[in-house]
C-alpha cells in the first residue's frame, strides 16, 4: 500500500460524496415513479451484475492459496443454494478455508 493518508482521506470523501448524492438527489427532487421499463429493469439487474463481477474471480485470490479459496467458494455456493443465511454462509466459507489451508500445509 503506497497511498498517503491525505490521499486515502480524499478518496474516502469522494466516495462518500458520490454515494450520498446518488441517494439524496432522487429523494429530494423526484416525486414521481420512473416510467421507462428499460431503466427500471436495468436498475433492477444492476446489483446482481455488480456483485457477480466483484465476487468472481476475485474470491479465488482472497486467501493464501487458490485451492483453499476454491474450497471456500464451493461451500458457500452450496450453502447459499440451500438457502442458508448470510452469516452462516460467510462463517462456513471461512472455516472451510482455515481447514483447507492446514491440509495444504500437511500435504
Amino acid at each position, binding site marked *: 500500500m503506497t497511498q498517503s493518508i491525505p490521499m486515502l482521506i480524499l478518496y474516502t470523501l469522494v466516495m462518500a460524496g458520490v454515494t450520498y448524492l446518488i441517494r439524496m438527489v432522487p429523494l429530494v427532487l423526484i416525486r414521481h415513479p420512473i416510467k421507462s421499463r428499460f431503466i427500471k429493469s*436495468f436498475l433492477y439487474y444492476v446489483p446482481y451484475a*455488480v456483485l457477480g463481477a*466483484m465476487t*468472481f474471480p476475485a474470491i479465488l485470490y482472497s486467501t493464501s492459496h487458490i485451492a483453499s479459496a476454491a474450497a471456500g467458494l464451493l461451500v458457500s455456493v452450496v450453502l447459499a443454494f440451500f438457502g442458508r443465511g448470510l452469516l452462516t454462509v460467510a462463517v462456513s466459507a471461512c472455516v472451510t478455508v482455515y481447514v483447507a489451508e492446514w491440509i495444504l500445509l500437511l500435504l
Partner: protein
Amino acid sequence: MIQEQFSNPRSLFLRGMRDGVPIGLGYLSVSFAFGITAVSRGVPAWIALLISMTNVTSAGQLAGLDLMVIGCTMGEMILTQCVINMRYALMSVSLSQKFDKSVRLCDRFLIAFCNTDEVFAVASGQPGLVGRWYLFGLIIPPYVGWSAGTLIGSVASGILPESVMAALGIAIYGMFVAIVIPPAKTSRAVALVLGGAVLMSCAFRYLPVLNTVSSGFVIIICAIVAAALGAVFAPVQEEETTENPAEISQEAPVSGETGEVSK
C-alpha cells in the same frame, strides 16, 4: 396504518428503533468483514472506520477500497461509485413516495444518508406511509452496527494470527455469494445476468489485452453490459418494480438478508 397524528413521536421513534435493530445486528458481521479486508489491504483502522461512517454501503465501499489502494484516478472512482450505487437512486425514488407529511425537506437530506438496501426494504414494507420519527429510529441501529462492526473488524485483524486472517479474507465474498445465489435460483433472468457478469469479469482477468483494463472499469463495464442485456431480453414486469415498493424489497438481491434478520 399508523399515522403520525395518532401516535406520539417517542413511540414512533422506538418502533423504528425496534425494526432497525435486526438490520444493525446483520450489518455487524458484514462490516466486520469489511474492516478486516481494509486492514489487510494496508488501510489504517481509523480510515476504514471513516469510510464506513461516511459511505454506509457494502459493495461500494469494497470497490472503492480496491481502487484507492491501487491509486486510481478520481474520475475512475466517481464512475465506479456511480455505477455500483446506482440502485440507490431507484430506491430513493421509490422511498420518496412512501413518506407522509411529517417528513420535511431537511429530513430527506438526513434519511438519504442512511438509505441502505435493508433500510429501504423495511421502510417500504411498512403498511401505509411512514413518518419522520419512525425513519429516524429505523436508521440509527444500522448506522451504529455498520460503524461498530468495521471498528471491531479492523482492530481484530491486528490481533488475530495470520492463518485466521487468511481464512477471514473470504468472508465478504461469502456474503456476496449468499446474497446473489437465492434470487438466481428462482429467476432464470437473474441467473443469466449474474453468469454473464461473472464470465465478463473472468475475461477481463485472464485474457490478454483485456486484463490491462483497470479493476474499476471492469466492474462498470460488466455491470452495465450484463444489466442492459437483462433489461433488453428480460424486462422486469410492471408489478415487480416501483408500482409496489414492498415488492422490490423482496426481489432485490441485496435486500435478501433483510428477510432473515427482520422477520
